[in-house]
């Protein structure tokens, strides 16, 4: 099993590259339906990263909710909207060429997002996370971590129904409101 541990960083880099490339493909692909399906690749790679972090339940929910649920709903909505615009004769499901080139808006947004990335990397590298983790885990030194990862799903269910019961109930009320609201919005008569 020793050689398997050496493969773990490579699998992380593979999954990270896949998710970043698929997100970039979502932004730069000209075909909107294809961009939506590229997003599935990004979400599945992120689910693999969750499995690497021993968060099995979150990874499975990521595949079920994000990669299948949300992305397919978005793609179906794209397909419902893909007619041509009668005023300008350009297809509504594709970005026009002027938004892909080097306009002032694109360069400004590029500099802005690069600045955010540089700021975040600077903050991440300036803090010693390992000592913070050691302080937090000081009281639980005697617990075997490899054993406890097996009951993470039990732990999530326990926390949701004890410590975070208010958030759990609020989310269920929110989903009910969204269900009713979506039906009311989309049944509205078109003039």
């Amino acid at each position, binding site marked *: 099993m020793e050689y398997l541990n050496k493969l*773990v*960083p490579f699998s*992380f880099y593979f999954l*990270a590259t896949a*998710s*970043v490339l698929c*997100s*970039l493909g*979502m*932004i730069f692909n000209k075909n*909107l339906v294809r*961009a*939506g399906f590229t997003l599935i690749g*990004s979400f599945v790679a*992120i689910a693999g990263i*969750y499995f690497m*972090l021993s*968060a099995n339940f*979150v990874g499975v*929910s990521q595949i079920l*909710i*994000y990669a299948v*649920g*949300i992305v397919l*709903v*978005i793609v179906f909505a*794209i397909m419902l*909207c893909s*007619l041509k*615009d009668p005023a300008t004769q350009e297809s*509504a499901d594709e*970005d*026009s060429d002027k938004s892909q080139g080097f306009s002032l808006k694109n360069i400004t*947004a*590029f500099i*802005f*997002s690069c600045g*955010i*990335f540089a700021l*975040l990397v600077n903050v*991440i590298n300036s803090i010693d*996370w390992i000592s913070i*983790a050691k302080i*937090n*885990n000081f009281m639980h030194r005697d617990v075997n971590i490899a054993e*406890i*990862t097996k009951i993470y799903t039990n*732990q*999530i269910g326990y*926390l*949701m129904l004890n410590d*975070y019961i208010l*958030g759990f109930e609020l989310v269920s009320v*929110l*989903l009910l409101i*969204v269900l009713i609201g*979506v039906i009311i*919005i*989309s049944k509205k008569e*078109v003039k």
Partner: protein
Amino acid sequence: MNIFELSLNHYLILSALLFSIGVYGLCTRNNTFRVLMSIEVILNAININFVAFAHYVDPIFVKGQVFSLFVMAIAAAEAAIGLSLLLIIYKNRVNIKMDSFNSLKW
């Protein structure tokens, strides 16, 4: 930061990279569907942060995983409401560009 030994910094930097990609898409794209998908990428970047902190800082009571599930529920609600609003706007205007949403009532 050692390249061949994974630490919390690797996951945080991946999350920062995905976040800035999402912000770039949010700022530049004129198509509302692409803006919604960029928001989904941003929420995923935040979820990576939650799960990575749960694994490295709080491995006993994985509270970050619970919050990542909450974020997923919020993202599903946001996508459903946003898409239904977008469809009703499309039915009225036959146009889904961000620039043309300058009035909410017409």
